[in-house]
Each structure stands twice: as structure tokens, then as C-alpha cells.
């Protein structure tokens, strides 16, 4: 049994037109037993930057605490929020530091950079960055997620369509994975031109098996 299959997880992030969405499942399990159905995997770093952490849940929470600590120090020193590209390098460095005794978590980073340009990126548990322009996936359901996203993704989607696409991709993939599912959580950040940037968080109804 692989260490990533101990808790089970599914994470996906997608880019749309002036918006991005990051979605996760809600199950926390101990191998085949479900322990919680409202587990948080997507965390906020600052208003325009979110990180999802899949893999071993304890390492995901520890990584999140370390990252929030580093970001708060950065905010105190620089008097501003970190850009997503810088944050991705920080996560990569923290993971690579533990090269010979790694954290068993795979992050998915999504944020709005300069000029409200959406940015997504994923890494393996050692910090090898993969910057994608369309979608990134992570977790035990990643193989199904790759397939679902490849077929369902279209470039330059509006926020409503992006929400529907990412939800359908997530729900259909976790249906084919025993270790993830039990509902879905989608966070969508939309930077419109005239109205202020808004963050939508939605809980999805999914199969509870």
C-alpha cells in the first residue's frame, strides 16, 4: 500500500478567462474506513492565492502551517502579499529541502498574479514544479482526473462554465476512486474588470460511498 493511499484525496485546478478554480474532495479516511466527510484540503494563503495539498493528511496540514508561517514573515518584511510564482518557488524549496526524507504531499497552487493573470502549478512530493496553462491534478484519483480534464477542458471559459466543468471533472473522477469522494468543494476566484474581485466557495453534492 502506497503512503499516498493512506488517506485518499483528489485535487484539481483549472484556468479560465480572468478566473481560476481549485476543487477538492472532502473525504478523510484511514485506509478503507472513512473518518471525516468535511476535511479541508484547499487552504487560503492570501486573498488571491490558494494551495491544495493532497497525500498524507498530517503532512498536508504541517506543510500548510509552515507555509502560512513563511508567508506571514514575508508579509512583515515586504509589506505586501507574495506573488504566486514566488510562492511556488517557496513551496518547491521547502519540499526539496526534505529530499531524502520527504513530506508525502503533492501541492496544487492556484492564484492571480500580475494584471490578474491566473496562475496554476503542481509539484511532486520532492518539489519538481509543473507549470501548466490549462489544468493540474493531484491525489489518488489523479489518473481519472487527467482523463476527465483532458476531454472536458476548453480554453478561455467564463466563470460559470469553468465552475460546471471543474465540478463535473471532479465528480466523475472520484466516482472511479474508492479512496476519494464524499462530496466536493470548489473555490472559484474571478477577477472582473469593473466589479471587485470575488471568491465563490461551493460545496457539491456527490455520491456518499
Amino acid at each position, binding site marked *: *500500500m*502506497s*503512503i*499516498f493511499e*493512506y488517506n485518499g484525496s483528489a485535487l484539481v485546478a483549472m484556468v479560465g478567462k480572468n478566473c481560476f478554480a481549485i476543487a477538492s474532495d472532502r473525504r478523510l479516511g484511514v485506509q478503507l474506513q472513512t473518518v471525516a466527510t468535511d476535511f479541508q484540503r484547499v487552504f487560503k494563503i492570501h*486573498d*488571491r492565492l490558494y494551495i491544495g495539498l493532497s*497525500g498524507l493528511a498530517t503532512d498536508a496540514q504541517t506543510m500548510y502551517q509552515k507555509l502560512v508561517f*513563511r508567508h506571514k*514573515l514575508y508579509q512583515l518584511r515586504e509589506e505586501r502579499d507574495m506573488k504566486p510564482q514566488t510562492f511556488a518557488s517557496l513551496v*518547491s524549496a521547502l*519540499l*526539496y*529541502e*526534505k*529530499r*531524502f*526524507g*520527504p*513530506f*508525502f504531499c503533492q501541492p496544487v497552487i492556484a492564484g492571480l498574479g500580475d494584471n490578474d493573470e491566473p496562475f496554476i502549478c503542481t*509539484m*511532486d*512530493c*520532492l*518539489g*519538481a*514544479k*509543473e507549470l*501548466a496553462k490549462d489544468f493540474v491534478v493531484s491525489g489518488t484519483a*489523479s*489518473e481519472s482526473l*487527467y482523463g476527465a480534464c483532458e*476531454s*472536458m477542458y*476548453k480554453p478561455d471559459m467564463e466563470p*460559470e*462554465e469553468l*465552475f*460546471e*466543468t471543474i*465540478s*463535473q471533472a471532479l*465528480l466523475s473522477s472520484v466516482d472511479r476512486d474508492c479512496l476519494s469522494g464524499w*462530496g466536493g468543494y470548489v473555490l472559484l476566484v474571478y477577477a472582473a474588470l469593473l466589479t*471587485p*474581485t*470575488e*471568491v*465563490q*466557495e*461551493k*460545496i*457539491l*453534492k456527490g455520491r456518499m460511498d
Partner: protein
Amino acid sequence: MPLTYDREALFDRFPLASKSKNLSHLFDPRKDIPKSSFGVRMVKMTDLPTKGGFSFDLCTRNQMLLDKGVQMPPFRKTGTTIVGLVFQDGVVLGADTRATEGPIVADKNCEKIHFMAPNIYCCGAGTAADTEAVTDMVSSQLQLHRYATGRESRVVTALTLLKSHLFSYQGHVSAALVLGGVDVTGPHLHTVYPHGSTDTLPFATMGSGSLAAMSVFESKYREGLTREEGIELVAEAICAGIFNDLGSGSNVDVCVITKGQTEYLRNYQLPNPRTYISSKGYSFVKGQTEVLSTKITPIQSKVQTVEGGDAMEE
């Protein structure tokens, strides 16, 4: 790692070379605290961000998990075909663009030709995190060296930095590299293996697709190729890797380095376009997904303070 030229310092820099193959010498079993073989004070949990280098905090816990029968996860590798050749005016480097995670393609268009110096580039195969980290680190060291010496970097400098780092980690940093560049002494092409050995060659291939690419080079390489012939040959060798090796795929990246000029031709050839997309695509109706609850938060833009406003009243 600091750059030193002392012979004595050299022995200090290779402490791991004399130790055992696994990492057990790094742990003090009596106290269960990891100790560093470089004699640096180990970082405690309450310390501020570490000063650099590897940290072995989690090794005891991971070893305990391994003993319980849990398998280590597969790291992202770059299955890869990477090549380089020397032509009459300089060096041409080539690489495919597939990154794999076990049998799955993690990235269909990753960059395997890394920047080291304006006149030196390096292709990397092996564990993706290791190739990226080691090339980034040596690139920064070369930049500092350029500031210190005031001269253009030489390929042998990059080579020595890479091989000494990889040797000191005894092959555990799994990076196989093809390093090429043009400096004052002329064009150079080297291969670096994960254990730290190097070769200097007129044409070289590395990675899982190296045999396919080498067959193309061995039949068609000759000295004194022109720039166009060099690029054609490199592209043909990478395509041989892409089509015949399962660990390599997608597109061909080429980098041409000559005296005073470097051209990075990203996605020089795209022999695997995606042709199976349905023109209509999926279109989901708004409201198709069942939602249990929604929360919308507008983001407050941060207040900007104005410098030099009115003076306060007495």
C-alpha cells in the same frame, strides 16, 4: 555549497564518499536525532527558516513507515531523450518534453533544457526535482563567480561544480546531465552521470531514449557540420527517442549555442499534435451540478496610504 579552491577543503567536501551506501550514518541511533555529516549545527523545530542545504528531520519517521510495509511514492522522473553535439561554430543541445510519474504522463510539455549561464545550457534526465534543483544551484553559483571574477563563465567551471556536488551525495541525487556551451576556449560538450563521473565528447545522448538517439548520431554524425545540419541531426535523434522510447514523447526542444549568441528554440518541432478533440467539446448547462451551499466573498482591495499628505493639526 561554498566555492573553495583549497585542496584540504576538498577532502572536507566529500565526507559522504567514505561512508556507507545507505543514509544510516546520518542518524545517531542512541538519541534518535539526525546529525549532519558536514558538522553543521542541526536545526531545531523552533528555529527560523534554515540556512540552506538538505534537512533530514523526517527520515526517522519515513524509515518507520517503510519498516511497516508502506511503499515510497514514485517521484516525477523525466524518462527522457537528451542529446548534444558539437558543430563547426558551437554546440547544439536537444531534448524531448515528456515528464512521467510512474507510467502516467504528468507533463506533456515540460522544459528539460535548463539555463546555466548566457553561454552555457544543460539538459537534465532522471528525477525531475534533482535536475531542476542542481542546475538552479550551479547556475546561481556561476552567477556569483561571474561577479567575483568579472569574466564570462567557462563550461569546465559548471562541470566541476556539478560533478563535485553529485559525487558528494554518492548518486542519491539522481541527475544525469548533458552540459554544453561555448566559452573563450571554444565549444565544449560533456555528460555528467548521477554518481559524479563525466565524459567529454563530440556528440552525446542520455536518458531512457539514449540508445535510439545514439543510433542516429553514430550513423550520421561527422565533424564540421553546419548549423542547419546540426539542428536537423539533433531533431532527428530526439524524434527517434520520442517515437521508439516510451519514456520520451511530445515535442522537440533545441538550443543552439555559438560564440556570443544563444538561441533557445522551444518546441522546435511538434510531431505529436492532438487531433482527437471533438470540435464541439463538452458544454455543461449552468446549474447542472448540484450545489449544497454557496459562499461569496468580495475581496477588499488593500487601502493605499498617500505619502506627503496634509500636516496634522496642532
